[in-house]
């Protein structure tokens, strides 16, 4: 009896605080719709990946998986025999997603580590050291943000080809590993806003720039560096055009390129939808995990990168 009473009181209190407002309700409804449009497709991918191809055709709109099965995931990871795969609507061709997954992890990790570290060094030189022509060089670096990637991709492809590095991991990572203009810009901004006092005290003690950079600046900028690494990793994970040009062979092919290949292997016209969606989900998973763990960091960085 008391609980009902208090619940009624509570309800009354909330009502009093927020009188029903049709405009507010409509705004919320639209917002919920937008969220649904953004998120529901991912659930649909999961539902499809857990279905079998044969059942998909007859249950095109059932919310739950049509004939719950993990066959699609087994197929993607090459754990299903060719005969079983064909019976479930797969192509029967061997696609080794473990290999692509490994390649994607290697490609994204190396480029992220290199780009973030070297960009941090450059950003330190642009923010803290005094040298002639510093601001002019910085403007030139920023200018590269305006060059469309397709424009440099063609000559870069020729360079990698001339170096005989096509279809090698080295050839794939080289253009990204030294810096990205955005990373330099991003970190310079943080270094400029960091307090100089500790650095200056260390300098009076005779510490050299290298020691100051490694022992004071880097640890103090751990948070922005982590955010930058996160953004860079996601960007590299999603990279498609360059890996498509340079890494078309199995042993260096990354997931995004592998997905495209998977899609084009359709036996007798009907695509292996559940297999394709399982592969899509696996390709999205690392980013989803990072987002679940560090979502707030990512969301809050948007304001920074757009307008300072």
């Amino acid at each position, binding site marked *: 009896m008391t609980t009902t009473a208090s619940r009624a009181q509570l309800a009354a209190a909330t009502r009093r605080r927020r009188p029903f407002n049709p405009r507010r309700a409509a705004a919320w409804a639209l917002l919920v719709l937008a969220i649904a449009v953004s*998120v529901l497709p991912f659930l649909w991918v999961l539902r499809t990946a857990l279905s079998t191809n044969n059942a998909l055709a007859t249950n095109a709109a059932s919310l739950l998986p049509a004939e719950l099965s993990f066959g699609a995931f087994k197929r993607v990871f090459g754990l299903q025999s060719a005969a079983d795969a064909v019976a479930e609507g797969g192509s029967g061709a061997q696609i080794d997603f473990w290999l692509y997954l490994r390649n994607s992890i290697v490609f994204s990790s190396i480029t992220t580590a290199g780009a973030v570290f070297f960009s941090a060094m450059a950003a330190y*030189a642009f923010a803290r050291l005094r040298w002639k022509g510093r601001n002019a060089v910085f403007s030139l670096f920023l200018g590269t*943000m305006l060059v469309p990637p397709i424009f440099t991709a063609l*000559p870069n492809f020729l360079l990698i080809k001339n170096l005989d590095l096509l279809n090698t991991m080295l050839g794939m990572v080289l253009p990204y590993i030294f*810096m990205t203009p955005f990373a330099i810009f991003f970190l310079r901004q943080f270094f400029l806003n960091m307090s100089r006092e500790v650095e200056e005290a260390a300098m009076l003690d005779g510490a050299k720039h290298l020691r100051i950079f490694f022992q004071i600046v880097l640890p103090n900028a751990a948070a922005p560096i982590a955010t930058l690494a996160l953004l860079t990793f996601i*960007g590299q994970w*999603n990279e498609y055009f360059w890996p498509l040009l340079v890494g078309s062979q199995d042993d260096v092919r990354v997931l995004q390129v592998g997905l495209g290949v998977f899609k084009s292997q359709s036996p007798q016209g009907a695509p292996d939808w559940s297999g394709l969606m399982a592969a899509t989900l696996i390709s999205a998973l690392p980013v989803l995990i990072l987002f679940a763990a560090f*979502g707030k960091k990512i969301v809050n960085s948007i304001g920074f990168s757009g307008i300072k």
Partner: protein
Amino acid sequence: MTTLAKHSAPVSPAPDKPKPYGGLRRFGDLKIALLFIAPAMIGFIVFYVVPTIRGVYLSFTEYNILGDPEWVGVDNYTAIAKDPLFWNSLAVTGQYVFLNIVLQTALALGLALLMHQVAKSTIIRGALLMPYLMSNVIAALLWFWMLDYQIGVVNQFIEWAGLPRVAFFGSEEWAIPTQAVINTWRHMGYTALLIFAGLQAIPGHVYEVAKLDGASAFQTFRKITIPLLRPVLVLVLVVTVIGSFQVFDTVAVTTAGGPVNATRVIQYYIYQRAFTESDFGYGSAIAVILFLILALVAFIQMKFLKGNESDLD
């Protein structure tokens, strides 16, 4: 994610605060600076500066990878001027860019206003940002499946509504709008967050004054919100236009330029000429033209919409 890198943000020169022992050394920290900047400088020169020059040079040559580039002057450009496939790619890309501007800006602005009115929680912003964190390839495949003619869920709903099924990727008139909608889906939340950040930067007292003066909601929106939001809106416009002009991934994965020439966008055409037909000179020439178009677009938008000036000052 690459679009993150394309934002032109204000460049503030680093303050030259004198160091305790500064001024004694004539070259400042030049030596140590060279060490710190060396790796980035290598990447900058080898993978940005040289390829930019080489790309321009290649556009004046005939080059099929095997031999040496052969200087042909402006032959590639005169050939492009008469190439119906080039003009088609330009028209198709233009259509795509236009649809993206309209859909994306309108939806994102609406969404940002909604968020500003009723919800500022990180979870809601995160949910809206999710599509943007997915790769183009994933977004393309996801919609390729949901929009499938035979058993895609969207066509199932269309049929329940009593309408004829739509061949989203298979018909010439639907192919480009479909690509634009996929791109809008992926970028809508991100763009909304950019505008939302701009909305939050507008000081509250401006609105209070408007309220005291008896301005209606619509008047406030038109006379205060939009003008004060202009720098952000211009930025969003520049990012949207420059990004959409370079559409490639979703097209490559789903329609590969087809049906017929309906989705052969500029970058896909460059890719085909350079890599499928080994015509690097021709491909480079189209890339130069694309580069010039993008530079022009950015220039016009910054100049005439005065994107780098705020009315707040």
